[in-house]
């Protein structure tokens, strides 16, 4: 079998865009009203990926750790802003809280994976750091979004229960325990589902990419297993820190619900 990598020409990519045109056509035919969103999303996919292709080309050729760290921080900041933007009230306090949580979860995961497990050298090797961090942040971002959404709605919806517990002498942490557990569970479901079906009904993008890129399937699989465990770890740490800090922001130091936090 010929395993030589096919380098798609730009014309072939344009043909692939035909798939998107069909999608847009179907949306119009069924009156879904998604034509504009699909067009913008399709253009953004192309522009963003081409841009990142050039950026990665530059980053991979650099030997400056400060630049790599700056890129990782930039990725974290964009993720934090994205999570906050998905919420009903995206405040700066929430952005900082998400940034702190993602930095803790993703940062710790990356250090453990690259320094303790893989032991990459030099420690800032962008070939490993940037794609691994991208995978970890991308998944933690989704979990963080779900966690904040669920926690906010649970705390607002369960105000009576929370205050009943406070009135019985519960600490704010005890009073918010059930909503926090619920939010953490909701945030963990996607990665648990992915781990359950990986290889059976879905071949992850990174693994597919590596195989198409010419890597041995066994090497690709090893990396994919590593990635899945990293995502599970970073998702757990991120949502644990995030839900704990977010729940705390609902209460005063005297264990009272903040009216402005639960209103509306």
């Amino acid at each position, binding site marked *: 079998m010929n395993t030589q990598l096919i380098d798609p020409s730009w014309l072939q990519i344009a043909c692939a865009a035909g798939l998107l045109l069909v999608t847009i056509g179907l949306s119009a035919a069924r009156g879904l009203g998604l034509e504009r969103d699909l067009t913008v999303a399709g253009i953004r996919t192309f522009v963003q990926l081409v841009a990142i292709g050039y950026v990665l080309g530059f980053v991979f050729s650099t030997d400056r750790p400060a630049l790599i760290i700056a890129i990782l921080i930039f990725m974290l900041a964009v993720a934090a802003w994205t999570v906050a933007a998905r919420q009903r009230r995206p405040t700066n306090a929430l952005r900082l809280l998400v940034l702190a949580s993602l930095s803790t979860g993703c940062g710790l995961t990356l250090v453990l994976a690259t320094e303790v497990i893989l032991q990459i050298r030099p420690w800032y090797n962008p070939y490993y750091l940037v794609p691994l961090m991208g995978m970890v942040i991308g998944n933690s971002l989704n979990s963080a979004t779900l966690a904040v959404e669920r926690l906010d709605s649970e705390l607002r919806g369960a105000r009576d*229960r929370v205050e*009943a517990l406070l*009135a*019985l002498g519960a*600490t704010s942490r*005890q009073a918010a325990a059930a909503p926090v557990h619920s939010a953490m569970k909701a945030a963990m479901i996607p990665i648990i589902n992915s781990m359950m079906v990986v290889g059976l009904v879905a071949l992850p993008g990174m693994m597919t990419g590596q195989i198409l890129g010419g890597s041995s399937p066994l090497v690709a699989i090893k990396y994919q297993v590593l990635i899945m465990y990293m995502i599970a770890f970073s998702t757990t740490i991120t949502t644990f820190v995030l839900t704990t800090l977010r729940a705390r922001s609902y209460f005063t130091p005297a*264990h*009272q619900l903040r009216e402005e936090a639960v209103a509306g």
Partner: protein
Amino acid sequence: MIKQARTVLSDVTLSFESGGQYAVLGPSGAGKTTLLRLLNRLEDPTAGALWFHGAPYTQLSAITLRRRVALVFQVPLIFPGSVRDNLCTALRLQRRGREIDPKDLTWALELAGLDGAMLVRDAAALSTGEKQRVCIARALMTRPEVLLLDEPTAALDPTAARRLIESVVRLSRTGGLTVIMVSHQPEHARGVGGEVILLVGGHVVEQTSADQFFVAPATRQGRSYLDRTLSGVTP
């Protein structure tokens, strides 16, 4: 006390004697519930101060204070599980679940007017009146000195309401508790006895004995409130 740019309570000076019974009356929006929330420290006043046994509220731990000044809400909120599970909530929160004495459970239930045999019942399956009593018994498990009741009879039929008022009186007389009960219905306040505090528009317009208040209110607002409520016009 200002909430959402609206003054809910203003110029309120009240003192409660240990072991006394107090009924807080007043029309909707008078600030009755806010008063109880302040006393339970679910909220802090925007101006002024509260004191408990000579110590400012702010110097006491809110957690400890709430165990000594317990609040029962208007709508009975039952936690999932049996009546026993509900009664054990406060002690479990203090990680003292293993110290629970079955006699304490029976004591709290009977003081709230329920039979000890109800402990094994599913709390969610009880009637509203029974749920309200379970909430009272649950609050009693911390052995509070003060029991704050926010319109405990609001959702009850007349018979259940009368039985609950009898329990409230028993709580104070037998249990030695200070009972402060908010009510919409003057006849319930009359049943509790003790003192009546009439709140109108966030101000205390009358504080007198229940006997005095129901015979001859001292203020025009007191007379007007009684006329409207006793004639069946909801304020």
